[in-house]
């Protein structure tokens, strides 16, 4: 039996292989595919893929339209901005007022949200909150002053248009010129593509939430476990999961079964390549634009110095690998000496990867690492601090957890209070003893032999811009029911929720407590999230904060932006399921 199952793992499935790798050439075989339909102008335009074109200045014209793209061998219609995936790189200058005219040539409403950019709420681009959206055939003019610098991105905030191609990078040059010196500067935008209609993907998850998980524990695994560890241990390992009706392998709701992972709009087979001369300092701006995918990024043979996160300079930290959640951005510096290196970004569930190459010549490649073996979620992911003492030995990477436990002054460890609405059908788990340590890189990255970036490493130099102590705490729980595929805050999906009111001008602390077994990248629009450590010490200014399973984190917010704002999980399918709140600053 053991032999059988190890064989099945070794024999590659050719059809799946090709799917995962995608097409090398992005060319669209137009043919008469029923999927490719003429758009607005009556003809089918082809999507340009690969390194996005750069637009700079203060006036921009962006056109949203359907264009044909072929990532897997079968052409599909994408929603694109100016006909490319990714969308154009917008280069702004700090202090400039930019004007962006967005014309909608789709037959449905669209929008653009400027992710991480501080601006008036009417310009934030969330249909139904900031504005009414951009109806078909119309042009909306965004105009705002850019008061920040760094690496950001933009994407549609309408339906699933982000999944079908609407995402691009924003680079804002600092007022005094770029101070992170590099000889080369590349955007590396990571994303996921599906040939399926994203709404159908969503409907499938509603009907069978593990539809895309082909890594579920099997009877064969059980027998193998039992023969290796003994029957008792094998049963023990499964008991809690089965009792709670939760899956230890639910690491990503959507896998490479349908996704092709892209780097700069290019499939792994297409191999996006950035050129350098040996010894040059290369800046790579990683934009995590996966709609439902966390990426674990490394460049075998190269140390990466992370210098800039979510548009903010950080105290440089040198690592082998980092995890980036949807919405986050990470700028790293590398100094390659050899001819070629693979940029390897495997999905968190280890079903696929995005890949590109750094090389001295366009035709060079380096070996592509094997995908890591997927791990089961651990007891720490299920019960937080309660597990950390006991299962420590077996809990790779959790051995430092003791540090934070000594801190009884913890600011985000005020008593856990679940909401009344967390005791009903919308919630499948509550964590009473969360973990608060930030030095855990997360499932799949613990004790992997590589130096992996953790949130404890991300430090904005100096003090927070607003030095005031928070006047009050707001505690919100991240909740869901995996079986029903419902996602919410405090057990209430958006439609049942009320807004969170921030009093204009106040400084407050937000505590996010994850009562689920998934990691949620939480994005608050309009205001910075000043991340704290477990002792309430300021760590870093962020716009997107990933909260791990059974983890409780906190950040400070200065409510200086009047209006209504969106606040949501940046996993698109969680957001659309209702893990979304409105914030009112008044």
């Amino acid at each position, binding site marked *: 039996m053991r032999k059988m199952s190890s064989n099945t793992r070794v024999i590659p499935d050719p059809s799946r292989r090709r799917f995962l790798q995608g097409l090398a050439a992005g060319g669209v075989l137009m043919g008469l595919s029923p999927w490719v339909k003429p758009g607005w102008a009556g003809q089918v335009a082809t999507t340009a893929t690969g390194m996005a074109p750069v637009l700079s200045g203060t006036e921009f014209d962006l056109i949203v339209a359907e264009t044909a793209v072929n990532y897997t061998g079968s052409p599909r219609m994408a929603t694109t901005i100016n006909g490319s995936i990714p969308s154009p790189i917008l280069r702004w200058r700090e202090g400039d007022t930019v004007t962006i005219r967005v014309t909608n040539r789709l037959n449905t409403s669209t929008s653009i949200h400027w992710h991480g950019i501080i601006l008036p709420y009417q310009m934030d681009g969330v249909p139904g909150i900031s504005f009414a959206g951009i109806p078909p055939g119309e042009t909306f003019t965004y105009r705002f002053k850019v008061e920040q610098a760094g690496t950001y991105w933009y994407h549609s905030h309408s339906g699933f248009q982000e999944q079908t191609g609407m995402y691009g990078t924003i680079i804002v040059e600092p007022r005094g010129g770029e101070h992170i010196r590099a000889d080369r500067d590349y955007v590396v935008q990571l994303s996921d593509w599906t040939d399926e209609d994203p709404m159908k993907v969503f409907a499938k998850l509603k009907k069978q939430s593990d539809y895309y998980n082909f890594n579920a524990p099997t009877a064969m695994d059980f027998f193998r476990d039992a023969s290796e560890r003994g029957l008792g241990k094998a049963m023990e390992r499964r008991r809690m999961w089965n009792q709670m009706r939760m899956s230890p392998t639910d690491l990503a709701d959507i896998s490479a079964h349908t996704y092709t992972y892209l780097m700069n709009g290019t499939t792994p087979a297409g191999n996006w390549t950035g050129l350098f001369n040996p010894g040059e300092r290369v800046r790579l701006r990683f934009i995590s634009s996966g709609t439902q995918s966390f990426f674990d990024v490394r460049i075998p043979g190269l140390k990466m110095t992370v210098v800039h996160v979510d548009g903010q300079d950080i105290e440089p930290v040198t690592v082998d690998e980092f995890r980036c959640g949807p919405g986050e951005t990470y700028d790293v510096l590398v100094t390659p000496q050899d001819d070629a290196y693979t940029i390897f970004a495997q999905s968190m569930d280890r079903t696929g990867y995005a890949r590109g190459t750094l090389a001295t010549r366009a035709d060079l490649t380096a070996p592509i690492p094997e995908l890591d073996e997927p791990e089961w979620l651990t*007891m720490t992911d299920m019960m937080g601090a309660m597990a950390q003492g006991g299962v420590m030995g077996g809990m790779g990477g959790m051995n430092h957890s003791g540090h934070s436990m000594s801190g009884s002054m913890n600011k985000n460890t005020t*008593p856990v209070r679940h909401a009344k609405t967390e005791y009903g059908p919308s919630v499948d788990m509550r964590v009473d003893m969360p973990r608060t340590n930030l030095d855990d890189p997360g499932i799949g990255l613990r004790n992997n032999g590589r130096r992996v970036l953790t949130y404890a490493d991300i430090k904005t130099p100096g003090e927070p811009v607003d030095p005031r102590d928070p006047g009050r705490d707001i505690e919100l729980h991240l909740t869901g029911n995996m079986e029903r595929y419902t996602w919410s805050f405090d057990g209430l999906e958006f439609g049942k929720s*009320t807004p969170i*009111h921030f009093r204009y001008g106040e400084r407050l602390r937000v505590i996010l407590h994850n009562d689920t077994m998934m990691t949620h990248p939480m994005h608050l629009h309009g205001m910075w999230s000043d991340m704290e450590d477990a002792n309430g010490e300021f760590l870093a200014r962020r716009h997107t904060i990933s909260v791990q399973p059974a983890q409780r984190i906190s950040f400070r917010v200065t409510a200086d932006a009047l209006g209504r704002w969106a606040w949501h999980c940046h996993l698109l399918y969680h957001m659309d399921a209702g893990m979304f709140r409105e914030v009112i600053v008044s």
Partner: protein
Amino acid sequence: MHKRLISGCVFLLGIGVFPAWADNGTIQEERAMNAMPMENMDHANEQSSGGKPGVMPGRAQGGPAPENARDPHAYSGGYSIESGQYALPGPRMLKLADEYSFASLLMDRLEAVRTSDNRSITYDLQAWYGRDYDRLVLKAEGNVDNGKIEEASTELLWSHALATYWDGQLGLRYDSGEEPGLTWLAFGMQGLAPYWFELDITGYVGEEGRTALGLEAEYEILFTQKLILTPRIEASVYGKDDVKRGTGSGLSELSAGLRLRYEIRREFAPYAGIEWASTYGSTADYARAAGLDTRETRAVAGLRFWF
């Protein structure tokens, strides 16, 4: 065979049904027990509560909300997402999937049934339409013999989520087929018991003081990600004798089956299997009187599909 079948089914139902009503009340305690012997427990407590008494570890799933549970609307400042300061004019535009309806149809069994002396077709489907917590559910099950519907039972139910894994259902059942139609009021629970047992338990009240109880339990054993064995049991119990339909009071019929399916796609899986069925009590007496077997072994082959 007889006895083994009964005890097997009772056992399966037992492990399935029991925790269903308790719905996991003990999990957190067990988790606490597991972690308890560890010296770090005190620290963990401290960490969780900042030295103050926080939430005592309770249930991880379900259960009633404690007195001091947080009001999820406490931060709203009286605002709503519908209207008010800074809200866009007109009715609320932003509606996410929690306010959308979905629809699904699962043909769990569409199979050719072969016994020692007969061939027939059985169908068993469930369809639903609605949102996350309230749905209209259609359940239909029946046998087609010689091109005629021998017996069919169709239920139309309002399904309302009551607990994490449980839906309460209320509606009507209509029996048709060779005998005159019969209408019942139906009420039941459908959901997922600990250890992944899928259960469907429905009580019925019919005309002329008829009562009945239907039980179904299914379990999935994954040999691989696509090759799945499903043990399934079904039992029917009646409150009183019905000579015309040949059903007697008490446990009337019990069947247990094993079906092995291969999911070519998630949505499309052919299967083959075997099922044992027995009648009991006066139902068995009626069967014997009519010259029918009280036990039969069925070979089944069919399709499971959904969309």
